[in-house]
């Protein structure tokens, strides 16, 4: 597809999702530019996967979208008819998942599945699939076309998923924990592949992950989510070098390092993520935060500009440096 729109490939504006009245995603907003990799990081239940599902307009039945727009190349996804959205999926917006083996139909050949989003048949489909499989670096692509998913390894299956997702040249690829089920060497290969494809094809990638290591490997920008809100966002090098939110700082400090004393205790963030029913109207990290003050329990901190595109939702952003490891 040739792009005529020059804005972000995907833009999420003030998204609010609720389950039974509790706002599990509360006012999320971000934009991903063509060719850029944005990582959405957070722990389980912070709403990152729901945000991804909302971005492709396939929310589970129990989840309600209260507010917010999803703009795909400038078109509002929630203003379209369901039929039109379906035509966009796989063509302008695609998704890959955690368990590549389970995400492939066990009774369809690799070729048939990769070709599905193209709508092509016969010779043309075969040529397109072969080219795409070659591009994602699968060994012996001509033979793989006729194989079934059980004949593939996890890494190969994820490459097939990536080929399936990218064959129709979507503007944006949503990758929901794409490497969690793979071992580390394969993980590195897959991340490198995604990185390369984003750059070569100008595809924007929204990467959902809980792994700061993955973020450092592949992402241009990162948005750290906590309890349904964005805590901090900015360029990866900036955020990693000088986090401006205590949650980010503590997350980074919690990463085990090779230089740590063996068998020493791992750094943890004390306390637990609050349940959505108990979300506070003020700062939701207050109960676990070492910098907590009066204002944190009274007022919600806005996402404030820290310069150079870094934004942080913390009243004490200036003092975060003091808790860095």
């Amino acid at each position, binding site marked *: 597809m040739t792009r005529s729109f020059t804005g972000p490939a995907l833009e999420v504006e003030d998204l609010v999702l609720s389950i039974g009245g509790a706002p599990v995603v509360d006012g999320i907003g971000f934009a991903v530019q063509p060719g850029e990799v944005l990582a959405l990081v957070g722990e389980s239940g912070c709403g990152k996967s729901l945000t991804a599902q909302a971005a492709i307009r396939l929310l589970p039945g129990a989840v309600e979208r209260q507010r917010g727009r999803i703009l795909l190349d400038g078109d509002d996804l929630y203003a379209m008819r369901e039929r039109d959205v379906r035509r966009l999926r*796989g063509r302008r917006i695609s998704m890959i*998942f955690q368990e590549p083996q*389970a*995400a*492939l*139909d*066990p*009774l369809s050949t690799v070729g048939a599945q990769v070709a599905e989003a193209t709508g092509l048949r016969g010779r043309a489909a075969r040529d397109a699939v072969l080219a795409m499989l070659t591009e994602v670096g699968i060994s012996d692509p001509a033979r793989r076309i006729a194989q079934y998913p059980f004949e593939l390894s996890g890494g190969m299956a994820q490459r097939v998923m990536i080929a399936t997702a990218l064959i129709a040249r979507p503007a944006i690829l949503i990758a929901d924990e794409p490497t969690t089920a793979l071992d580390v060497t394969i993980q590195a290969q897959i991340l490198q592949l995604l990185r390369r494809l984003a750059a070569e094809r100008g595809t924007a990638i929204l990467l959902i992950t809980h792994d700061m290591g993955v973020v450092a490997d592949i992402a241009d920008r990162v948005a750290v989510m906590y309890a349904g809100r964005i805590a901090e966002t900015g360029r990866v090098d900036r955020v990693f070098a000088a986090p401006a939110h205590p949650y980010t700082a503590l997350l980074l400090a919690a990463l085990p390092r090779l230089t740590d004393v063996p068998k020493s205790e791992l750094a943890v963030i004390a306390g637990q993520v609050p349940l959505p029913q108990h979300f506070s109207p003020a700062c939701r990290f207050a109960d676990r935060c070492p910098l907590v003050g009066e204002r944190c329990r009274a007022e919600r901190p806005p996402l404030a500009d820290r310069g150079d595109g870094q934004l942080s939702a913390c009243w004490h952003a200036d003092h975060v440096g003091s808790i860095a490891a």
Partner: protein
Amino acid sequence: MRRLPVSIVVLLGVLLAFGIAALLAPWIVPHDPLRQSLLLRLKPPGTVDPRQGLFALGTDDLGRDLLSRILYGARASFAVAILSVAVSLAVGVSLGLAAGWFRSWTATIAMRLVDTMLSIPAILLAVLTVAVIGPGFLDLVLVLGLTRWPRYTRVAYASTLQVASMPFIQASEMAGAGAVRLLSRHVLPNIAGPLLVVATSEFGLMILFEAGLSFLGLGIQPPAPSWGSILSAGRQYVERAWWLTVFPGIGLFALVVCVNLLGDLLRDQLDPRSARR
């Protein structure tokens, strides 16, 4: 591809032999199954007539060749069984797929309909319907087909629920596949195994139903031959002409046993857990 076990190959072979005999009946029968001859009434198996030749399985009360009638009867049995299984499979599977896919009220309506159908004895319903709309080949197929679909619906419903929640279905949905494509290309192939097992055992049942209804005079109408009607007519002569009941009986028994054994073996093949029980 895994090789099929010998037992399945043997059973398939026997079934195929029955099927071919039924299919080719018009060309391989030694005599016209409808040709009567008063001089050749109730002749025992192996009778040789100087003009008409060998009657390998004997003749019936109207002097018709039993072997020819059994072969033509197999044709009727197969035709009724295949068509009525096809009808009930189509009805039952579409209803089950829809129920499992759309859930909520679609599932409620479909499954209550199934419960209703299952609470009425199928053979009774069939007898009633035939009694009202009259006997005949097409009526028989429709009656059997439209009373025997609930088992498919149950199996299709349960399997669809299971398959629909699998990641690869979501993946296809996110790749832009619509409901029709998802159901036909991804769900149906993945639930075909259990449906095949049900269809096989239903096939055996359909053969029995056809024979039963024809025996009662509600199925294939005389003079057209059917195993049920041959048995029914032979019943009056069971002391004088045993061959009239024994041979069609053996045919019916062998065919249904084969089909049922095949169904069991298929089930074991498709669900390895049930084989060890």
